C-alpha cells in the first residue's frame, strides 16, 4: 500500500519518535530510524521519509530550507517547489509550509517543508510514489495527524511494538532495534535512562527464573530484588543507593560514576514480552515519574 492508495480508517496506527507524532497506515513499518529521522516503508517499498531539526529562528521560511536542499553536485534531481494540495493545506494549518516534488531514475516523491512557529522545529516530509502519479489521499491523512510538539511535559515513543511516555527532561541518546531486543537510551540531568524490551519471553524464561534472567539482562543489577507490581504485571526491582554514613559516603561523592541505580523488569505474558527500565545517575530519589513511566511503557 503506497501513499497513492486510500487506506481504510481502521488500518492506521500511531507512530511517534523523538517529539514527532503521526498516524500512518499499519502496513508502513520503520525501515530506517535515526535520532531525528524516520523512513517508513510498505511491503511495496519506501513510503514516507521524515526528517526534522531545530529551526534557525521562530518564523523560519520553509522556502529557504528547500533552496538549501537542491543538490550542488552529482546527478541533479530537480526539486520543484509546488503549491500544496488543498487537502494538505487543510491538514497543515498552523505550520509555515512549502510543498515540493521531484522525480528521477524511476523514483518520485511529493512532500513539504514545515516550520512550526510554536516549537521552532523544521520538518521535511516526503511521500514516495511512482513517477507521474501524485501522492494520494493516504498522504493527506498522514499529514492531518502530524504533530511536532505536545502539550504535556512528556515525549511519546511509539515504534514497532513498543510505546513509551518519557519525561521531556530526557533526551534520546541512542536506540537499538535488533531481533529479540529493543533498547532506547536517554540522557537527562545527571541521569541515564534505558528502556528495554525482550522477546519472546516464553523462550527466555523457559528454564530461568525472572530474577536470574534480570540479573543477566540488566548489567549492574546485583543483590536481591524486590517484588514490584507494575500495573497488572508482576515485576522485580533492584535498587542500589550509596552509603549514607562514614567515609564511603564522601568517597562516593568525590569519585565519578553513577551512585543511584534502579533496575526494573516485568513480564507481559499475553504479549510474550519482557520489559525493563534502567535508571542510573547521581540524582538522589525520589523519582516520582518512574512509576508512571513504567506503567505507560507497553508492548502493543
Amino acid at each position: 500500500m503506497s501513499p497513492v492508495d486510500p487506506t481504510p480508517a481502521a488500518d492506521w496506527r500511531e507512530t511517534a519518535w523523538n517529539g514527532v507524532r503521526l498516524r500512518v497506515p499499519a502496513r508502513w513499518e520503520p525501515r530506517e530510524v535515526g535520532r531525528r529521522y524516520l523512513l517508513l516503508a510498505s511491503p511495496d517499498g519506501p513510503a514516507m521519509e521524515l526528517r526534522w531539526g531545530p529551526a534557525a529562528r521562530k518564523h523560519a521560511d520553509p522556502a529557504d530550507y528547500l533552496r538549501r536542499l537542491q543538490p550542488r553536485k552529482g546527478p541533479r534531481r530537480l526539486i520543484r517547489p509546488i503549491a500544496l494540495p488543498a487537502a494538505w493545506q487543510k491538514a497543515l494549518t498552523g505550520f509555515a509550509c512549502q510543498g515540493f516534488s521531484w522525480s528521477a531514475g524511476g523514483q518520485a516523491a511529493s512532500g513539504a517543508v514545515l516550520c512550526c512557529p510554536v516549537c521552532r522545529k523544521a520538518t521535511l516530509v516526503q511521500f514516495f510514489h511512482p513517477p507521474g502519479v501524485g501522492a494520494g489521499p493516504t498522504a493527506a491523512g498522514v499529514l492531518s495527524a502530524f504533530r511536532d510538539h505536545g502539550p504535556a511535559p512528556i515525549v511519546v515513543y511509539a515504534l514497532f511494538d513498543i510505546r513509551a511516555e518519557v519525561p521531556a527532561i530526557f533526551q534520546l541518546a541512542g536506540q537499538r532495534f535488533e531481533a529479540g531486543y529493543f533498547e532506547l537510551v536517554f540522557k537527562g540531568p545527571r541521569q541515564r535512562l534505558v528502556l528495554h524490551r525482550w522477546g519472546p519471553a516464553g523462550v527466555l524464561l523457559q528454564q530461568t527464573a525472572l530474577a536470574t534472567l534480570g540479573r543477566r539482562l540488566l548489567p549492574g543489577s546485583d543483590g536481591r530484588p524486590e517484588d514490584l507490581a507494575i500495573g497488572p504485571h508482576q515485576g522485580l526491582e533492584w535498587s542500589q543507593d550509596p552509603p549514607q554514613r562514614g567515609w564511603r559516603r564522601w568517597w562516593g561523592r568525590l569519585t565519578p560514576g553513577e551512585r543511584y541505580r534502579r533496575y526494573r523488569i516485568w513480564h507481559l505474558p499475553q504479549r510474550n514480552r519482557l520489559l525493563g527500565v534502567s535508571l542510573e545517575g547521581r540524582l538522589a530519589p525520589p523519582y516520582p515519574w518512574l512509576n508512571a513511566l513504567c506503567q505507560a511503557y507497553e508492548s502493543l
Partner: protein
Amino acid sequence: MKVFKRRKTAETDAARAASLACRPTKNPEVQESPLDSGELLLAYPVKVRPWFGSLARRLGAPATEVQTRRLQLDTLGTAAWRLLDGRRTVAGVVRAFAREFQLHPREAEVSVTRFLKELGKRGLIGLKAPPGELKGLGKK
C-alpha cells in the same frame, strides 16, 4: 539535511521480495535427533578438504572423504527448522514463526532470514527460487 541522497531501496526491495518468495528445502542427508529438552540435534555430512584429508591420513586417522558434523539448535532454531516443510516460502516461514512466538513481523523476518542464511552456508538447506525470480537474487 541530506534528504535526496541516492538510495538503493528499489534494488534492495526487489532482492528482498525475491528472497522471501523462495522455498527453503531441507537437505535430505541431514539427520534429525530430538533431545530431551525438545530441541533438535542435526547431523550433516561435510566433504573433507583434500589437504586436510591427506594431513589426517599422515597422522593416522581413517581415510574418509566425508565427515559428519553436528549442530544443536536452540528452541527458536528448532521451531524454525520444523517450519521448513518444502512447501512454505521464506515469507510463509517468517509469518508462521512470528505467529508462534508473537514476534513483530520485521523482527521475525530478520531472525528467520539470518537463521536460514546460516543453514544455507552449512549446506543444510537449499533455496528453490520461483521461476522468473532468479534475476533479483543475485543483486546485493
